[in-house]
């Protein structure tokens, strides 16, 4: 029931956000229509970091309690992390091409997001080769922890490379920001946030049911 309300809210806010991004927000003077990519790019990027944080919470929760529900929590966060960061990297590339020229610029944020994406993917690859739920939870929690404490160190090293090798880095939204743009960005943030919350809760619920069904299956098999 709650999920349904959340789904409707998400849909409404997404449609509103789309309307505002393409029709309400003014055309940016320097970058043209390509600037409209930023309304989705920035919220997606933030949700990537949120995923990393939630995975860390799941890992710590699992270490403290040993409860598989924390494993499901972390796994869901990582799944959303892969999805949102991958989408965000594509939007970044499609912005970079018309504005900077190259498809891909190895600047600090892009590189960090890419590495984070790779860590999430490695996390899933590891899980897919561990059939036993308990062992999978334990080992992927260890990897998740090591991966998430990598993020700040990674950020530091990548940031240092950038500052020591100055490149043509144009900060996003080079032109002036009008109030309409600010409002559009806010609505877009809300839409992405709601979408994230909806997908997170739905996937978490599915994971829980899946575990229960697996359990039932085991019980049935045991009495065969």
């Amino acid at each position, binding site marked *: 029931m709650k999920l349904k309300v959340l789904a409707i809210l998400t849909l409404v806010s997404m449609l509103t956000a789309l309307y505002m991004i393409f029709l309400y927000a003014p055309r940016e003077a320097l970058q043209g229509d390509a600037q409209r990519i930023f309304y989705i790019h920035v919220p997606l990027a933030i949700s990537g970091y949120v995923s990393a944080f939630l995975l860390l919470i799941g890992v710590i929760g699992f270490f403290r309690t040993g409860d598989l529900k924390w494993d499901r929590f972390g796994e869901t966060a990582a799944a959303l992390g892969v999805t949102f960061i991958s989408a965000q990297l*594509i939007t970044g590339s499609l912005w970079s091409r018309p504005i900077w020229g190259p498809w891909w610029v190895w600047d600090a944020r892009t590189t960090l997001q890419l590495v984070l994406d790779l860590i999430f993917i490695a996390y899933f690859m590891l899980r897919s080769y561990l059939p036993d739920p308990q062992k999978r939870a334990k080992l992927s929690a260890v990897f998740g922890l090591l991966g998430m404490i990598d993020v700040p160190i990674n950020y530091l090293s990548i940031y240092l490379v950038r500052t020591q090798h100055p490149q043509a880095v144009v900060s996003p939204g080079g032109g002036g920001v009008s109030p309409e743009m600010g409002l559009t960005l806010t609505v877009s943030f809300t839409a992405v946030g709601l979408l994230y919350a909806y997908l997170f809760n739905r996937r978490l619920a599915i994971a829980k049911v899946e575990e229960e069904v697996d359990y039932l299956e085991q019980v049935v098999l045991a009495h065969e």
Partner: protein
Amino acid sequence: MFAFAAYGAVFTVIFVFLWMMISRQNRIEKKLEQIKNQLKDRNAG
């Protein structure tokens, strides 16, 4: 152009995620149905 492509890509990715999620849900429901039938057969037999 690029803006449309970007939003298209975002929606594609989210659609793929949703599709995978829903097919996973269907798989579970199927499995549950199977288990139910199995139990029914056993009680009948």
